[in-house]
């Protein structure tokens, strides 16, 4: 029997769906299953930032007739008669820790015993709203909803116990964990024993819920190891690369070397002679814009991965490279730099910078440049699809399971509902795996072969056919007063936009990209304008961990450091002076965001102070091959300051003995996971600064593997990354990405302190450093 309760007109709907078929086979018939639906506060805000800020949201379960155009965060939890609590992780696990942090929020308000919680990974389903796990908002968007879900279930368990005992609800408490106790008689009933009775309780209204005060939290804010850590260390979790389906074929695809290229002719004779190769299949080129369509090319189908790779090597293909064969990075760079020198489109203006510049005086200007980057997650793109007459099943390491459903359905002319997407573990994502092109390839090939097909990208495919982080040229100028403080500041950035992936005519940065560290600066400058200039894309552009913040923070935080030296001041003291005493910055945030997450420079100043203090700023004199550098940046609503210490030897070899980072991310769900994210971000940022560079010659990407696209290894990563989390009662903000942007400028500022050599173009390997 299904009971459905709708409790309020405020968009908050909880349904008791105990008899629904969700988790069928996993839950016994008498299990208690609860689904919470809640209209999101910030859904529209996230949409305005599109497509970078993936839409919020969660989901799980079979909840019918929910308006597909709205966002409906929700979460399922189930309690088995044996007391096992099932909690769905609706977001993708890729090292971000969501399979631990999200369920623990539910478990906390439920007063569940964490040892008896089983985490279930959610499939893709539009009825849950978007599940796109990027934009650092898993905890931030779902914190309240998940707490309410847990609290709702707890109250229903308490009411079930009260009913069983025939006592007042107020005499019952959920204490200790996993048990409801009667205060006076000391009787207890376990959650499992109460499951079937709880399932019959009406769903309480939101105002009946009693959320815990932070001092009562069991799990939130307490460090916890990863839910899957033991399995991971045993090599047990199934990553996309590890999926095996009966009768599965393996495919490797020869993609057009240049974006938009087409096959002119194919000779597959040598390929078909390779043991294990079954056939070759052409894949049609995409129709612009490329969006998440397959790139086209020729697929080699085999009965194992190795044979598919070997067969592909033996293909002889003549390509029509098309218009993008004109793309050569060195030429393109000059165009971007030229554009950045000319006035662009105003993005945000305060005061009248032109009038201030017209007054003359001391003007300081600089140009910055940062190249394309590839994601290079350790697991290259991979997917398995099984296309049958009326349904499709996809197993994919995806950050965006509903994107998989949509794109696969579109490619096959089917309905999205007919596509099931199982989300595997991800061997890293960093934004690459939000784009489902590789799952579409698997589906297209499964349809053509009539068998399940696993498409495996090699590392070379991954590096050569990525959705690249954008290349950017930036220009900044400031008019400074006699103390060296800026009176006017104009900054201009030029880069091929992510929008070009969705709109072939898009040549300007989106509002979302502008909001990532460019539309405003945290500095107290009375006359300010940010601008953006046009650029045409020649490769697929995508979002990569912290996105446009990377190049924007590099330019702004390096320029601030240049101003400090020009003023003859200590860079940290000068940075504090630039930040001023603390104020709210009008950052063009959507109203819903601005209300909950105002841009408060006091918090940025505080992390700067903590990082400087913990790093021992100023205790040792920079120079002679040793130096400290600092950068501050707010991204994904989190305030970060990083101090980097470098040593540079006579050959230009750079080592990074220590990074000291201070983070104010509001309330944090799992501090140890936050430490991990920031430790990892310091390494990721080091890779960007040291060697991160993708270039093209005649449209063909020059790099191919970790030999020519090196990423930081243990011996060139920062040796120690000390992370200090600011205790805060502010709403949770992002933690997966915000550690990245300050790294490149902090490293470069440290190198300047150590050597006097200013780095205005990334990576360091372009500047005589190694």
């Amino acid at each position: 029997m299904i009971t459905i309760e709708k409790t309020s007109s405020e968009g908050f709907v909880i349904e008791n769906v105990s008899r629904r078929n969700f988790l069928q086979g996993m839950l016994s018939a008498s299990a208690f299953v609860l689904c919470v639906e809640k209209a999101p506060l910030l859904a529209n805000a996230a949409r305005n930032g599109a497509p970078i800020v993936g839409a919020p949201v969660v989901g799980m379960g079979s909840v019918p007739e929910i308006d597909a155009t709205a966002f409906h965060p929700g979460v399922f939890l189930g309690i088995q008669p044996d007391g096992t609590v099932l909690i769905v992780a609706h977001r993708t696990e890729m090292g971000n820790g969501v399979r631990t942090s999200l369920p623990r929020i539910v478990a906390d308000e439920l007063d569940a015993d964490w040892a008896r919680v089983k985490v279930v990974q959610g499939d893709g389903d539009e009825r849950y709203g978007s599940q796109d796990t990027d934009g650092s908002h898993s905890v931030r968007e779902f914190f309240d909803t998940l707490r309410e879900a847990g609290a709702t279930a707890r109250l229903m368990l308490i009411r079930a116990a009260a009913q069983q005992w025939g006592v007042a609800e107020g005499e019952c408490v959920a204490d200790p964990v996993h048990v409801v106790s009667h205060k006076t008689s000391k009787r207890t009933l376990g959650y499992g024993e109460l499951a079937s009775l709880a399932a019959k309780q009406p769903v309480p209204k939101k105002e009946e819920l009693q959320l815990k005060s932070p001092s009562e939290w069991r799990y939130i804010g307490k460090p916890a190891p990863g839910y899957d850590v033991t399995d991971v260390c045993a090599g047990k979790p199934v990553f996309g690369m590890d999926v095996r389906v009966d009768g599965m074929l393996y495919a490797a695809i020869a993609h057009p070397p240049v974006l938009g290229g087409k096959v002119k002719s194919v000779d597959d004779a040598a390929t078909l002679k390779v043991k294990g190769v079954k056939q070759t299949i052409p894949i049609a080129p995409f129709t612009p814009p490329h969006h998440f369509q397959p790139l086209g090319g020729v697929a080699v189908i085999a009965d194992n991965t190795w044979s598919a790779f070997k067969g592909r090597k033996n293909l002889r293909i003549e390509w029509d490279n098309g218009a993008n064969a004109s793309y050569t990075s060195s030429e393109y760079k000059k165009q971007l730099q030229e554009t950045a020198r000319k006035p662009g489109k105003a993005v945000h203006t305060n005061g009248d910078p032109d009038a201030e510049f017209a007054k003359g005086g001391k003007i300081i200007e600089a140009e910055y440049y940062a190249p394309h980057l590839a994601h290079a997650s350790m697991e290259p793109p991979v997917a398995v699809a099984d296309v049958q007459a009326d349904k499709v099943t996809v197993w994919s390491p995806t950050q965006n399971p509903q994107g998989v459903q949509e794109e696969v359905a579109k490619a096959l002319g089917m309905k999205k509902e007919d596509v099931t997407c199982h989300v595997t573990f991800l061997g890293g994502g960093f934004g690459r795996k939000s784009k489902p092109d590789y799952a579409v390839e698997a589906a297209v090939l499964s349809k053509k072969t009539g068998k399940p097909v696993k498409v495996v990208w090699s590392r070379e495919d991954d590096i050569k056919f990525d959705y690249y982080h954008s290349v950017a040229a930036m220009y900044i100028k400031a008019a400074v007063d006699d103390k060296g403080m800026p009176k006017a500041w104009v900054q201009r950035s030029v880069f091929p936009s992510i929008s070009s992936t969705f709109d072939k005519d898009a040549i300007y940065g989106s509002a979302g990209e502008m909001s990532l560290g460019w539309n405003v600066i945290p500095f107290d400058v009375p006359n300010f304008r940010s601008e953006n200039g046009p650029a045409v894309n020649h490769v697929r552009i995508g979002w990569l961990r912290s996105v446009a913040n990377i190049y924007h923070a590099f330019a702004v935080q390096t320029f601030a450091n240049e101003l400090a030296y020009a003023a003859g001041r200590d860079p940290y003291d000068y940075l504090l002076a630039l930040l001023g005493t603390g104020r709210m910055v009008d950052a063009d945030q959507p109203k819903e965001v601005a209300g909950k997450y105002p841009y408060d420079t006091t918090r940025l100043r505080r992390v700067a102070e903590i990082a400087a203090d913990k790093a021992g700023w100023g205790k040792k004199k920079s120079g002679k091959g040793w130096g400290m550098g600092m950068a501050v940046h707010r991204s994904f609503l989190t305030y970060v300051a990083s101090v980097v210490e470098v040593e540079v030897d006579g050959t230009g070899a750079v080592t990074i003995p220590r990074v000291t980072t201070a983070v104010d991310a509001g309330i944090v769900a799992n501090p140890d996971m936050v430490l991990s994210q920031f430790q990892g971000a310091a390494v990721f940022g080091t890779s960007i600064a040291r060697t991160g560079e993708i270039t093209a010659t005649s449209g063909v990407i020059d790099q191919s593997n970790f030999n020519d696209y090196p990423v930081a290894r243990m011996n060139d990563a920062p040796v120690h990354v000390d992370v200090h989390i600011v205790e805060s009662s502010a709403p949770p903000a992002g933690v997966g990405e915000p550690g990245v942007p300050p790294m490149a400028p902090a490293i470069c500022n440290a190198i300047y302190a150590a050597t006097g050599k200013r780095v205005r173009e990334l990576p360091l390997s372009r500047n005589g450093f190694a």
Partner: protein
Amino acid sequence: MVHLKVNGSAQTFDGDPEMPLLWYLRDILGLTGTKFGCGMALCGACTVLQNGKAVRSCQQPLGKLEGANITTIEGISAHGPHPVQKAWAEVNVPQCGYCQPGQIMQAVSLLSSRPHPSDQDIDDGMAGNICRCGTYQRIRAAIHEAAKETA
């Protein structure tokens, strides 16, 4: 026909002798704990033990493995977690976890030749294993931890 031992059990293989051990383990034997990362011995995700020493399985063609004794991540924990795995969990090393089987196998090999490695030994011994999530600091700590355990 190639004869080899994988995690203690005898195997024979009569396919393409060029097939790397990596793909034999993964696609033929179904031992997917050993990962594919680069195919060029640049990242270490495919690290296994060959006669007790770490090798990159993506660069070991089956044709050259007659008589080899191979141990994979599945093989070191047949009787409960290996001390290195315990240390890894203790320090909560993994983020995405994809490279960790390779890191762990490399660390097992390192500790077998240097039971009490210095930081420098660890950096030198582990530099061939990439972790894109950046867990290096914790890997270093976990290896020191494991070294205590096995002392």
